[in-house]
């Protein structure tokens, strides 16, 4: 890829607010890194509570991502490849968790899956316990990250178009074969980007988790909750753990942008 030429036709003044904007995003990250007590960094991020929070976060985010794939891929397919009455409205509603404050999502989940919630009694009859369990964390994370997968994949499906699928089916391929051999391979980069974004969103999930799942070490206290709690008594540990999440976020962006730049 060649470097953009200098004579791009942009007025020079545009660079000033653009640079201010970039600084606005980068400066807090630099400030955060400058506050890290490097001499204790390893101790701070490997304490028992930090490790258990990190392991819990990675585990629940991985499960949430799998759930997002299982539910989100069919949703994206239905939204991109079919048309029915009310589809536009449905799409908007499904994307709601993207713009909803997570704490609102948490309250909504509480009134759905909580003990006194809409499905609470059904869940209790089935002998399941969701309140204050790791399951509640996964539900909260899946709720907020599912739209990321649906949006990325639906966009990729629309961009890819249907011509190859039409050809495949005129050649006699069954719908499932077309989906498996043509559609999904075509949108694989979009699917991967969506999955990584969902994972990142699940990893950062805070509001819905603290509202809906509670906070107990090793069970429901994920890394963002641990950071929020450590800030009360040990700001150095909070800063060190924050940096860990920043590094994970940078890795996620590198993963998404790396293999195929147009995926985002």
């Amino acid at each position: 890829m060649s470097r953009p030429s200098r004579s791009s036709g942009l007025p020079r003044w545009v660079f000033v607010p653009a640079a201010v904007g970039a600084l606005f995003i980068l400066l807090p990250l630099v400030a955060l890194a400058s506050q890290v007590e490097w001499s204790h960094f390893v101790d701070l991020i490997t304490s028992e509570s930090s490790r258990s929070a990190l392991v819990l976060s990675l585990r629940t985010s991985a499960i949430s991502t799998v759930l997002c794939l299982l539910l989100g891929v069919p949703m994206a397919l239905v939204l991109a490849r079919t048309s029915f009455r009310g589809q536009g409205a449905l799409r908007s509603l499904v994307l709601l968790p993207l713009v909803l404050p997570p704490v609102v999502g948490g309250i909504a989940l509480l009134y759905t899956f909580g003990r006194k919630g809409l499905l609470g009694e059904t869940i209790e009859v089935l002998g399941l316990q969701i309140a204050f369990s790791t399951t509640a964390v996964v539900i909260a994370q899946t709720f907020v990250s599912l739209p990321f997968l649906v949006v990325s994949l639906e966009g990729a499906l629309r961009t890819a178009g249907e011509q190859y699928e039409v050809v495949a089916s005129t050649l006699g391929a069954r719908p499932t074969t077309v989906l498996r051999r043509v559609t999904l391979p075509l949108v694989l980069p979009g699917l991967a980007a969506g999955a990584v974004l969902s994972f990142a969103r699940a990893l950062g999930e805070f509001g819905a988790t603290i509202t809906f799942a509670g906070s107990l070490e090793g069970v429901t206290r994920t890394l963002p909750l641990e950071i929020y709690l450590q800030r009360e008594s040990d700001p150095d540990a909070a800063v060190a753990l924050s940096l860990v999440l920043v590094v994970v976020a940078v890795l996620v962006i590198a993963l998404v942008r790396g293999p195929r730049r147009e995926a985002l």
Partner: protein
Amino acid sequence: MKRLLVPLVAGVLLSTAACGSDPSSDARAPAKDTTLTVFAASSLKGTFTEIGQKFEDANPGVTVTFSFAGSSDLVAQISQGAPADVFASADTENMDKATADGLVEGTPVNFATNTLEIATPPDNPAKVDSLDDLASPDVKTVICAAEVPCGAATAGLEKVAGVDIAPVSEEQSVTDVLGKVVSGEADAGLVYVTDVKGAAGQVIGIEVPEASQVVNTYPTAVLSGSSNASVARAFTAYVVGPEGQAVLAAAGFAQP
């Protein structure tokens, strides 16, 4: 690098933090109109709002604005230069921190105390009637995390009573604990007496005899950064005085 960054970042943070008060009022306000900014612990929201209104009525031209948050958050904000005149903490530890950092003018005054109590949903589904019941894994008990003042008090109570509570969740604040009990998610929670009183009808309170040995003391002080120190002193005196104490007593706070 760090030297250059810190003031810059602090400046950005401050300008956001200052949104709560009205920065322009100082500039154009004549001497009579004063805005007093009070940083107070979350558990004081109801009582201090009421005390603030009474103080305004008693002192025409004075407007009292509040910022309610966790005591340690408030100390952090004050030490980063947030414009505040009065600080009221939910525990002595955070006030000590503020005093040690040189943020406080004069000596803090204790104005109230609070003790812990068990809160359960009105139907008390787990039939809790003493602290010992909270040690049972069958009772879904929610407490404050040890890192926050109410959690420190909870740990103290466990020690005094010789009970090892098995919580399903350790929340960030006492209001989060109360919320879990009010919504029926938890069978029981350890909250302050004032929280039970404030949520009357939504929870029932069960007294814990040993709680009287673990008392949380609320101190208040005028801040050294205050630009209205005389009004700030009048406000803290009002809180300690009969009018303030009456409001606090009605909410269930005890006298120090």
